């Protein structure tokens, strides 16, 4: 450890601030790919659709299986390593979402491996359509008999905010219309061409779990996503424009969908579940030496419309209780100050299951910083903020991406 790091601890601040260069900054995302996405993918299961995304991400980077010496793909890590015959390789045991990308970046930065394949996919998992999707339903003894599923869990968070701060359904509907219109325009979105939507269209859709109408909610679909991370040095030899990991962290308050999802859930720290992601964002901004006003594009996770409002407050883009008004007036739409979830997100682009759609927030952040988006490209975007999770699930993960490092 360098002297600067010790000095940082003495000052009682985040010691990462005193490090000359954060280890994440030596890692770049050099490959991104989505598989086909659809409501149902005939002829695929979760493994085959994941392998489709893997083939595409290798093609994106020009790398072959033997160039990969780390695999981070949840249940597919073992099969991918075996069938690629790239062992012995590093393997992550985490769920494929932002934390697994940070795990992979940490493994690369600490020399455990140099090039990691991240992947996840889902197909043929949701077949009982009279029930909500299997990954949305808790089995815990304190919620199972009360008909809880993700929409109801997140609704309990949203209703509390509406009570405290006067947030109204029109605020929520404006978020949903904005994101759905991004998907409407996107040729690869599952709900491409389904719009355009006005906030009134959202409010006219049937109620699912008050305050969420059907069009305030994520949809369900099938698909896969894959990414490749490598060192800054190796990235120089690859054909793609590297996108750097500027910072990232996670806030968890416990297991998802087992206990009452209370806005005010907290321990002695006083840090509340309602603002899950705030402390992860503060750490991420410190690593990146940036703040909210430096963010060019907000690839926020959108399981439900209210979650976008909550995240703008949690991450410090606006004050507590101000999120509803903050997102109005075109601020989060195309050409606005903080364009949000520009591919249509889980509401319109795709929502494959328990994890794949969380990777897709990072896919889109990288695509924006490459300047490669076919639709809703933010001109000259240099910094993207990506997120996963939500207060209804008691966690939020945050990641900052950049075209340059500090």
């Amino acid at each position: 450890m360098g002297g600067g790091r010790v000095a940082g601890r003495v000052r009682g601040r985040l010691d990462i601030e005193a490090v000359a260069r954060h280890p994440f900054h030596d890692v770049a995302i050099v490959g991104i790919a989505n598989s086909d996405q659809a409501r149902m993918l005939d002829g695929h299961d979760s493994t085959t659709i994941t392998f489709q995304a893997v083939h595409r991400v290798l093609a994106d980077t020009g790398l072959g299986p033997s160039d990969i010496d780390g695999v981070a793909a949840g249940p597919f890590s073992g099969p991918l390593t075996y069938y690629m015959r790239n062992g012995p390789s590093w393997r992550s045991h985490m769920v494929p979402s932002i934390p697994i990308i940070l795990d992979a970046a940490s493994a690369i930065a600490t020399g455990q491996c140099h090039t990691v394949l991240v992947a996840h996919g889902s197909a043929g998992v949701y077949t009982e359509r009279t029930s909500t999707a299997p990954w949305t339903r808790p089995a815990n003894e304190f919620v199972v008999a009360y008909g809880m599923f993700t929409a109801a869990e997140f609704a309990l968070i949203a209703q509390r905010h509406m009570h405290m701060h006067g947030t109204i359904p029109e605020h929520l509907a404006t978020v949903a219309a904005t994101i759905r219109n991004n998907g409407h325009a996107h040729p690869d979105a599952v709900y491409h061409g389904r719009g355009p939507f006005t906030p009134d269209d959202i409010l006219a859709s049937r109620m699912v779990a008050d305050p969420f109408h059907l069009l305030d909610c994520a949809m369900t679909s099938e698909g896969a996503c894959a990414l490749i991370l490598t060192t800054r040095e190796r990235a120089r030899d690859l054909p793609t424009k590297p996108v750097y990991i500027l910072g990232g962290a996670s806030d968890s308050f416990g297991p998802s969908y087992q206990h009452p999802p209370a806005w005010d859930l907290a321990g002695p720290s006083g840090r509340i579940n309602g603002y899950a992601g705030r402390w992860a964002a503060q750490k991420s901004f410190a690593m990146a030496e940036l703040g909210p006003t430096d963010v060019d594009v907000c690839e926020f996770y959108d399981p439900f419309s209210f979650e976008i409002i909550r995240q703008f407050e949690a991450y410090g883009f606006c004050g507590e209780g101000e999120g509803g008004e903050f997102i109005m007036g075109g601020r989060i739409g195309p050409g606005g100050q903080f364009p949000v979830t520009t591919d249509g997100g889980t509401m319109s682009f795709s929502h494959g299951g328990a994890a794949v759609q969380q990777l897709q927030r990072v896919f889109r952040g990288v695509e924006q910083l490459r300047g490669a988006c076919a639709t809703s490209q933010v001109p000259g975007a240099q910094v993207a903020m990506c997120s996963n999770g939500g207060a209804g699930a008691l966690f939020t993960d945050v990641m900052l991406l950049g075209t340059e490092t500090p």
Partner: protein
Amino acid sequence: MTEILQPQSPGIPLPVPTLYSQPYWDGCKVGEPRYQRCRDCGAITMDPAPACSGCFSTNLDWEVSTGQGEVYSWTTVWRPQTPAFTVPYVAVIVTLDEGFWLLANLINCPVDAVHVGMRVKTVFVELSEEITLPYFEPAE
């Protein structure tokens, strides 16, 4: 006429008690809304847990709540989790007067009457030989 919320019918998925939650479910069967209090620091722990959420001690005792409290947050559900559930149903987080949260469904109440701050009390509904389920209903 406004619909009055009812308890769910048998056939819904039922809780499976654990070693440390069994006294809670035993309490429900005899009409006692039980909760845990720490013998070391005095903090309340709920849902039933293997350790105190105030100091992480395992020295926990069971006490009986008044079962009364007020609605902290709510949602009226119109799309059932599975066909086993009858809609509409209302999920509430209630702040019990002793100071802990409990999630349950609200019954014996017009569907459009629920609001944050509403006074409620616990009511028990037997769903099987093993499980009697706590619900909330309006206190007045």
